[in-house]
């Protein structure tokens, strides 16, 4: 009988991915068979080791530009940089969860493999060059996050958050699939761009068309639906309604993880879709995205002003930051891609750190997250107060922090992309945002304690906060370390 031709598989392309997934599966079994209850932090250590291992596996791949599985998965510097960012996010989330889980009485070994699965899904999104693979990544990511959000069972707010997230996430998935179907209906392909000569892809398809002659309705409607789905995942206004509740209800390390990871992964996928598959349609989608970004920055930051609960405030502010990230996505320029990566790393470190500080203030059964609980923190826990100040300044975009350089980067990209007005909106909303970030600093340093809150620091937490704060400052003072790296990631934009 005739052999079926199977396209060659380049395992190097998926090596980091396989490492994480394989390690997670094995870890799940190791945990359940060998790690005794009450000592689940061993699982955590093993999980962190796995992520570090995957990072090491990815290291020699730097500089490669290859694809496999018929071009569905690609490995370029952009994907690799994202991989490292996601691994870092996962590792820090695990580090800060090590003590959090037992303290909250919700210690289950599955937490760590679940985080690893989520990380692998994010990596998949970063590597995907195909709408179906993207959908796979989004679903894997979402499902693990639904579980993680409800991880604080039987705390009601956690369950409520998981339920809300599940329902809205399912809607978003529906939009995504329907969008893919319409796009396929018009173009006959779900591949974003060609990785081999002669391969059909969206970019190829659009390259062949002369626009006046073709009716692109289906493609546009499909892309719109896909955009809506991404909007849900990234929490762009007006698809952000779930965010504050879910972020507030989820266990804090999970909130930290998804506030940076989901956004980063979904936006990275969106970036590939817009910048590499549909750049020729930019005149059509740019106004839409620019409006979305402007509204997101405005409403996210305005919403945060009204919050007296710091966790909820960070949830709203994360909506605003999605808007800033979007600036880098939509300019279809090397500068934009670099800015996006830089901002993502800066924001990830900062936000993870800020949530880690919240963990220190969280006791079992009672969370001390109101602004009053921050009053006088400087006198009780100088380390926490200093670190929180660094994070708040970085989120506000004050030098010399990484957050400032990131903002500078994306605003520069926006200006050079002809979006000066959007950069202006970004500036104005940053000024608004400075108000509520600064309020936290003011409470910590300039007030006497109002309530008796005993912050608790553990080794893992201290380590996580220190790494985040150090990164925030180092990349703020010597951004060139990171800029040199992200400069090598510039995609062949509009390939």
């Amino acid at each position, binding site marked *: 009988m005739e052999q079926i031709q*199977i396209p060659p598989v380049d395992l190097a392309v998926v090596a980091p991915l396989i490492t994480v997934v394989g390690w997670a599966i094995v870890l799940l079994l190791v945990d359940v068979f060998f790690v005794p209850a009450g000592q689940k932090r061993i699982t955590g250590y093993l999980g962190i080791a796995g992520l570090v291992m995957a990072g090491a596996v990815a290291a020699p791949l730097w500089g490669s530009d290859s694809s496999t599985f018929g071009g569905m998965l690609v490995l370029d510097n952009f994907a690799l940089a994202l991989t490292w960012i996601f691994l870092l996010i996962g590792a820090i989330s695990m580090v800060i969860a090590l003590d959090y889980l037992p303290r909250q009485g919700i210690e289950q070994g599955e937490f760590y493999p679940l985080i690893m699965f989520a990380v692998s899904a994010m990596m998949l999104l970063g590597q995907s060059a195909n709408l179906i693979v993207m959908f796979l990544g989004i679903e894997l990511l979402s499902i693990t996050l639904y579980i993680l959000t409800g991880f604080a069972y039987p705390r009601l707010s956690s369950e409520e958050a998981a339920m809300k997230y599940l329902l809205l996430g399912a809607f978003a998935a529906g939009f995504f699939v329907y969008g893919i179907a319409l796009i396929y209906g018009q173009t006959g392909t779900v591949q974003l761009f060609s990785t081999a000569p002669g391969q059909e892809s969206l970019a190829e398809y659009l390259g062949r068309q002369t626009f006046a002659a073709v009716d692109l309705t289906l493609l546009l409607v499909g892309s719109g639906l896909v955009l809506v789905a991404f909007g849900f995942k990234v929490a762009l206004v007006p698809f952000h309604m779930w965010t504050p509740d879910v972020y507030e209800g989820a266990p804090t390390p999970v909130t930290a993880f998804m506030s940076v990871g989901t956004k980063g992964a979904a936006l990275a996928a969106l970036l590939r879709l817009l910048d590499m598959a549909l750049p020729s349609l930019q005149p059509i989608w740019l106004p839409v995205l620019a409006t979305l970004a402007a509204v997101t920055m405005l409403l996210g930051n305005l919403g945060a002003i009204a919050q007296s609960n710091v966790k909820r405030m960070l949830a709203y502010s994360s909506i605003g930051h999605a808007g800033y990230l979007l600036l880098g996505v939509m300019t279809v320029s090397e500068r934009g891609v670099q800015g996006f990566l830089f901002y993502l790393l800066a924001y990830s470190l900062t936000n993870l750190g800020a949530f880690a500080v919240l963990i220190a203030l969280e006791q079992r059964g009672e969370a001390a997250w109101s602004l009053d609980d921050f009053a006088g923190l400087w006198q009780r826990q100088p380390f926490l107060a200093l670190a929180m100040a660094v994070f708040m300044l970085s989120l506000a975009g004050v030098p010399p922090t990484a957050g400032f350089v990131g903002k500078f980067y994306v605003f520069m990209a926006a200006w050079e992309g002809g979006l000066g007005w959007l950069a202006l909106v970004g500036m104005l909303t940053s000024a608004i945002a400075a108000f509520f970030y600064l309020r936290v600093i003011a409470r910590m340093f300039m007030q006497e304690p109002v309530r008796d809150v005993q912050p608790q620091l553990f080794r893992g937490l201290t380590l996580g906060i220190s790494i985040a704060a150090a990164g925030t400052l180092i990349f703020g003072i010597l951004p060139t370390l990171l800029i040199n790296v992200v400069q090598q990631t510039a995609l062949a934009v509009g390939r």
Partner: protein
Amino acid sequence: MLTNYAFIGILFVVALSFPLLPLIMAFFLRPKRPTTIKQSTYECGLEAIGDVHVQFKVQYYLYAIAFVIFDVEVIFLYPWAVAFDQVGLFGFTAAAVFILMLFLGLLYEWKKGALEWI
């Protein structure tokens, strides 16, 4: 190109009217003589006991999910088995990895006690 979709639209309308039309016609044609017994939920059969909203044991769902997983596994394995000769060693390895992953999942379920009926 949109005209191609018109056929689907027509099919949709026809398909919808096929079951609806008899129902509507029956509604108008049939004699109406309601009695208490006729209007009870199950005119024939057993009396309904208790509330409709009963809580099922959670294991029921776990079984259902486990069943679905292996059901789908079989669907994937059928075409593989049919084309076994043609896909060669690579195909064999791929399917083996696939089965191994499911097996590991089963191990996990077993250890977690999801397979026990309490």
